[in-house]
């Protein structure tokens, strides 16, 4: 029985890896057989070679983009949580601030980005602002939902124990909101990479987004793909970090889920 379970566990890993390898192999074959020019679609082997030969270039630019993402995301986290807390705690704030929060997302970043450059100057700051602007929204909205998802019976229970409004907020609403907050964080992390690239598109001298814009007119498509690959790895890595943080901060949540799913057997 244990052997079967272990084999099943291995299979859940093996299958997606096999599918990925299959896709890459199919891509390689297609480029070779159809003789696709390297400036149109480079073969995976060409991209891999480029990753090796331009590794230091990619690394240097990746660090810059990573910096923009991390600082921007932290700013988004603080702003998003503070906003969410305010909106959930005060009706007045909710009615005045929430519509602005939503409107902030309808303004196309492509239009704002050049203006930001003129207002704030060049360098990392405008990119950080763009990352923060794009990422704070899912964090704020999901956290607000979480803060409002409190069980009214629990609120009554706390009130009978003599809790004040603030105590209800800190001891009940905030912990209830944690799973929601992490949903927002995971979404925010996923779009942070794209946000940084957009920020770099419109005026940068460093970063992977800049490298892509610079390499395209030179028809170095393999390098473009290599940069995209590094960006994907970055995005996945950040997501995994968020999941780890989630597991660490909400141990009861996952143990409960695991316990419930095991009971089904």
């Amino acid at each position: 029985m244990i052997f079967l379970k272990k084999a099943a566990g291995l299979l859940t890993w093996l299958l997606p890896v096999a599918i990925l390898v299959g896709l890459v192999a199919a891509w390689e074959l297609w480029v070779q057989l159809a003789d696709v020019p390297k400036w149109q679609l480079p073969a995976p082997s060409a991209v891999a070679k480029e990753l090796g030969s331009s590794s230091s270039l990619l690394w240097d630019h990746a660090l810059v983009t990573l910096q923009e993402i991390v600082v921007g995301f932290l700013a988004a986290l603080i702003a998003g949580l503070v906003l969410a807390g305010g909106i959930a705690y005060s009706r007045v704030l909710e009615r005045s601030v929430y519509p602005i929060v939503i409107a902030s997302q309808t303004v196309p970043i492509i239009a704002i980005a050049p203006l930001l450059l003129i207002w704030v100057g060049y360098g990392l700051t405008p990119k950080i602002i763009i990352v923060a602007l794009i990422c704070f929204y899912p964090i704020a909205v999901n956290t607000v939902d979480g803060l409002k998802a409190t069980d009214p019976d629990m609120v009554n229970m706390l009130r009978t124990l003599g809790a004040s409004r603030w105590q209800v907020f800190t001891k009940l609403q905030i912990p209830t909101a944690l799973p929601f907050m992490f949903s927002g964080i995971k979404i925010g992390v996923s779009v942070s990479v794209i946000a940084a690239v957009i920020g770099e598109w419109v005026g940068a001298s460093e970063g992977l987004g800049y490298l892509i814009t610079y390499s395209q007119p030179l028809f170095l498509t393999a390098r473009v793909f290599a940069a995209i690959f590094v960006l994907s790895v970055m995005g996945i890595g950040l997501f995994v970090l968020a999941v780890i943080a989630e597991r660490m901060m909400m141990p009861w949540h996952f143990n409960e889920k695991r316990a419930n799913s095991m009971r089904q057997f």
Partner: protein
Amino acid sequence: MLSGVDLTVKEGEFVSIIGPSGCGKSTLLNIIAGLDQPDSGLVELSGNAGAKLGQTGYMQQKDLLLPWRSVLDNTILGLELRGVPRKQAREQAMEFTEAFGLKGFEHQYPYALSGGMRQRASFLRTMLMGQDVVLLDEPFGALDALTRVQMQEWLLQLWESLNKTIVLITHDVDEALLLSDRVYLLSARPGRATLVLDVELPRPRNYYMVTSPEFSALKARLMEPLRSQIQSIKSAGQSAGQTD
């Protein structure tokens, strides 16, 4: 919903309220606890008029344990809200974990406990607040029949040792008779006390009394008006096209 309920409970008594659903039993407890305000009439606790939040202990049907706190930390929740330092509160609670059947589970999370244990943890949380009056809203309703019997016997013992005044809501006639000194039967729409029954069974009580002839006689006196109420609700419901 409620119209004219006269409830008098002496210190140290155990009183049950029984009645069909929708007759306002929970509302009554809410008023006593201070969660709701009555349109007319007043509440007097230990000679003080008006019911403020936090004056009575209140235990609801759902255990309402915070899933992100350990069992021990859940029980000290009320003390924490009052400002008692955690360490001190934990020590206080630890003295009772054995009596409440939670020994060894103090540092587990609620999901790992059985239904009965969770109810006892919720009980301990209420008890630690030290109020003289404790309100229980169908505390054993969600438990299976066997656990319920266990819990009823445990509650009897606890009440006898702690000397609290308890008001219990239940739909279980046996439970009401077994535990209480007095049973109030509430009618539905409007909620009124239609019968007040003194339970003259000797204390300390145990579960074997349930089959005694005295018990059956008391039960019969309760069942009659109870059944007629249920019938009238049924017919009223059918004519109005509602379900309860």
